[in-house]
Structures are given as structure tokens and as C-alpha cells.
């Protein structure tokens, strides 16, 4: 589904990713772990298409398409979802308005029928309920005044509504208490654990991996994958720290 070959990327002329290679197949959950500054968030942003994060060489294909050629909204319509470490507050735009525009923009792009207001609300309410988010919060401006946990739940509600093929979740566990962590973990499993979907979890700590069991764990250090393994690797990292592994 996602094939990254020897990817180099830079921000403001500074190389952050230095030859990253990774392949994710449908039905798989991959965790990318690594110390701060290893390039984890950069990887998420490069895959999402954020301006200023420039891939200088290498290739990324998503379902056979050259991902790097697509605009961010085209990547979304193709089925990619980027969960933000710091979801952005947008005063004056309600969650419902934002998500309906987003869902319908993706549908338009794919040549599918638009969702009516009623159809969309039904979908949004169901997703909010599944994540334990008060339906009233759908009417509030996007993430404005939300706690850290509420913002991350809101990311998962968005993911549930948009129903992507590949979710790249950047530090989705940061700022979560144990209840929110559990809700978010269950959300990821419910929405994304399917034979035709895949997840790339970017995380510093292994605690989210107690709820979302990865099939593969990779260690990212200094812009490259330095080690890959099964779920046991996460525990090893937790025990021994990154220092020993990256060395």
C-alpha cells in the first residue's frame, strides 16, 4: 500500500530524513519509534504534503501512485489520513461544517455522491458516540477550547468519518490520560483494523502500543530506519532506551 524508498527530505535546507526505506502492506499496523529529533514528525508531514517539508530524493508510492506529486487534498482523497500531534484550533469554523466540507470534498474528488446535511450528521454523531465525545462538541469551533485529550478524540472522530485506507498517526498518544488513551486506541482498532487498511503509528513511547498491537516496529534515528522487528522490539526499547539501539 505504502512504499517508501530511500527518502531524503529537508526543512529550510536542513536534511532531516536521510534515506528512509519502509514498506507497509494492507492489513498491517506499523509503529515507528525513535528519540526526539529523529525525524518522526517530519516523516508524517512529508507524507501528508505539508509546505516547507521537501522531499529531495527517493520515492513514495501509495497504492501505486506517486504520492509526492499529489497536493495535500489529493492525498486525503486518495485515502491518506494524517493525525496531528498538535491538532489546530480554528475559531469560527464549526467541527460539523469543517468535517462535512472535508468529507464532501473528498467524495467530489473521487466522483462520489455528496452527503446531505442529515446523512452527514448521522455519521458524525455515530462516530462521536463511538469515541465517547459529546455530540455537542461537533457544533463547537474546531478544537477551540478542547483539552489535549478532546483534541485527540476529535482526530479519531475525523478519521472515523473520513474512513481512510492509510492512517499516519503522529504522537496520537501525547497528552492523553489513561481513559482517553484507551478510547483512542479502541478507535484506531475499530476504524483501521481491516484487511484493506493500514496504520503507521508514530510514537515516542510504547504505551499506545498496549492498546493498538503493531505487527511491525521500526526504530527511526537520525533520519533512517536503524532497526525493524516485531512487537517485542517496542518492549525492548522501553526497557533499554533508544541510546543502545541507535548506536
Amino acid at each position, binding site marked *: 500500500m505504502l512504499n517508501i524508498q530511500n527518502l531524503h527530505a529537508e526543512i529550510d535546507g536542513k536534511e532531516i530524513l536521510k534515506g528512509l526505506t519502509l514498506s507497509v502492506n494492507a492489513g498491517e499496523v506499523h509503529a515507528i519509534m525513535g528519540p526526539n529529533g529523529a525525524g518522526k514528525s517530519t516523516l508524517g508531514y512529508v507524507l*501528508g*504534503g*505539508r*509546505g516547507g517539508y521537501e522531499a529531495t530524493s527517493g520515492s513514495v508510492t501509495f497504492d501505486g501512485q506517486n504520492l509526492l506529486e499529489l*497536493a*495535500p*487534498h489529493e*492525498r*486525503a*482523497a486518495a485515502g491518506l489520513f*494524517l493525525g*496531528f500531534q498538535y*491538532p*489546530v*484550533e*480554528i*475559531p*469560527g*469554523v464549526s467541527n460539523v*461544517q*469543517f*468535517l462535512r*466540507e*472535508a*468529507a464532501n*470534498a*473528498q467524495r467530489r*474528488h473521487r466522483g462520489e455522491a455528496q452527503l446531505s446535511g442529515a446523512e452527514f450528521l448521522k455519521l458524525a454523531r455515530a462516530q462521536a458516540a463511538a469515541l465517547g465525545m459529546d455530540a455537542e462538541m461537533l457544533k463547537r*469551533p474546531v478544537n477551540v477550547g478542547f483539552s489535549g485529550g478532546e483534541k485527540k478524540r476529535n482526530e479519531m472522530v*475525523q478519521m472515523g468519518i*473520513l474512513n481512510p485506507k492509510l492512517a499516519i498517526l503522529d504522537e496520537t498518544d501525547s497528552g492523553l490520560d489513561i481513559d482517553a488513551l484507551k478510547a483512542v486506541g479502541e478507535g484506531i482498532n475499530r476504524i483501521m483494523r481491516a484487511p484493506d487498511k493500514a496504520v503507521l503509528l508514530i510514537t515516542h513511547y510504547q504505551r499506545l502500543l498496549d492498546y493498538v498491537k503493531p505487527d511491525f516496529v521500526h526504530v527511526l534515528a537520525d533520519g533512517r530506519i536503524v532497526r525493524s522487528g516485531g512487537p517485542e522490539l517496542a518492549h525492548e526499547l522501553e526497557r533499554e532506551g533508544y541510546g543502545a539501539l541507535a548506536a
Partner: protein
Amino acid sequence: MTVLDLPSTRQEAWRWADMATLRAAAALPPTPAGVDPADLFLDLDGPRLCFVDGVFEPAHSRPGPVEVIRQIAATDHPLGSLAIGEGWALRLGAEHAATCIQIVHLGTGGENHVPARILLADDAVATLVETFAGTGWANRLTAIALGKGARLMRSVRLVQSEGFVSIRDEAEIGEAASLVSIFLGAGGMGSRIDGALTLTGKGAFAEMGGVLLTSGAQKQEAAVAVRHEQIEGTSRQIWRAVAADQSVASLAARVEVARGAQQTDGEQSLRGLLLQRTATVNLKPELEIFADDVKCAHGATVGELDRNALFYLESRGIEAPQAKALLTHAFVADALARIGEEPVREAFLADAATWLEAAL
């Protein structure tokens, strides 16, 4: 030869005024408007007045309680004092109400001057919508006096395709009375929205604010002074400006709190958004406070669209132009949300949306 008496941009209060566009608008020869005045009214039941080039047009009007009369301007304001001759007056007795009054000003070229007067006796209520369309220089003076507990809600949209609109409001707001005037500049004309509001009674409420949208080489400005003379007064000046291309939007807002006007609650929020770096937004917030028990919140910021927010929207599938429109619309919406009547608010938001679609 009114044009000779125009204020100079060397005067501080007129430094951002676009008198060149005003002069050019006054010199535009009349040409058929190509607009049916009937199309400029919102679909609301209520009195209607239409002025074409400053002349009352009975065929498109049903003035109801509004009188059409000649007036003399009682002001020394350099533009307001030019607004003499035939105009309109709304005088409501105590506890009377007149809602959804609409006034359409259509210009075909040249200059036109209309004086207006709104006098609401104690506990009277009025709501008013004004629309400026067409071209030429439209100059207006509106004198407002609100008795105890009277309430006036006024919404004014400037959608002339070109030319210039100058508005001068002079208001005295009595005890516990409320004046809310919201402006939208969403046409291609230059403008000067100029106001002097005085809270003359205890517990009065005064609000003048709105949205200026500029593009091309256009210049629009608002210059408002609110003076608190009595205790427990509240004032709000909430302005948003969005400037594209090489345009200039300027906001000058002043709050004066007289000695003894204790427990004044003033809020001034001036925010500008630049759609391109070639555009300019000028902000000038001013406070002059001579009382010691006063709350005056003020903020003035100019910036570009938040790149984080843009990428967030795009990453969810929204195309860049729509994402920009959504964020820009949200930026102006809170200033227009002050309009109390839903159909009027919706119409103003739709005008703003039309402008945004063209500008983004």
C-alpha cells in the same frame, strides 16, 4: 464646487482617506445603472425607500413611518456638512416600533448627498438596513438621537461596483439606550465610514463595527470615535479588514472616557488579514481615559492566514482555495454576527462570501 472643500490627507484624522477616488467618483458622468433598484432590497416585509442619485424614487418606495424631507446639516464635519437637501427622517414616539426598514441608495455617477435623521423617543425600537449600489460619490450624514431605553439596530452594506461612499454618523445615546451599527464594505468602491457616538445617558450601549474587504487598488477606511460621558456605559468597536492585491484597508477607532464616566466597559478589537503581502492594513486604536474605574479591552493585529490551519484543512481533503475561503469567512463572520436579524445577517455573510470567492 463641493470638491474644493475636501479634507486634506495632511490632517491626522484623514491621513488614510482616499480623496482622489472620491474626486474621480464625483466627476464620473451619469450612465444607466443597469441595476433594477427592486433587486437591491432584501426579501423582508417592511417600509422601503429608494434614492437614485440622492433623489427619492417613489415608484420603488413604500416609506411607511419614514418621512422624506429637506434638511440642513447641523455638523461641522467636512463631508457630513455637505449632506444637505432632500433626505429622510425616522421619528418614533415613545414605545413605538418600526422594524425591517430598508433604504437603497443607487448611484449612476456624479455626486449625491442625502441627510438623514433618526429620532427614537423613550423605549422606541427600530431596525434598519441600508444598501449602497451603483457608482458615483454617495455622501451621507445620519444624525441619531436615542431616548431612554430606545434601541436602534442598523446594518449598512456598501456594494457599489466603483466610485466612493462616505458615511458620517453622529449619535447621541441616552440612558439605557442601545445603538448597534454594523457595516460591510464588499464592493469595488472607495469608502470612508466615519462615526462619532456619544453615550449621553447612564448605562448606554454603543456599537459601531463591521468588515472592510478590499482588492485591486481599492482603499476603504473606517474612523470611529466613541465618547463615554456618563457612568456604566458600554461600547464595542469590532472591525475586521481583509485586504488583497495592492489594496489598503484602514481602521481607526477611538474611545474617550470623560472624567466621572465610571464603570465604563469598552471593547475595541481591530484585526486585519492580508491575502497578499502587497496589500496593506492600517490600524489605529486610541484610548483616552479620564476616569479611574474603567474596563477598556483593546486589541489590534494584522497577519496572514494561519499556515497550520490551512494545512490542517487541506490534509482533510479540502482544496487550498476552499480552505482559504473557509478561514477568511470565519475571520470576518464574528464581526457580522453582531447583526441581530438572521435574514439580514445571512445576506451580509453572502455578500462577504461572494467577495471572497472572487478574491481568493
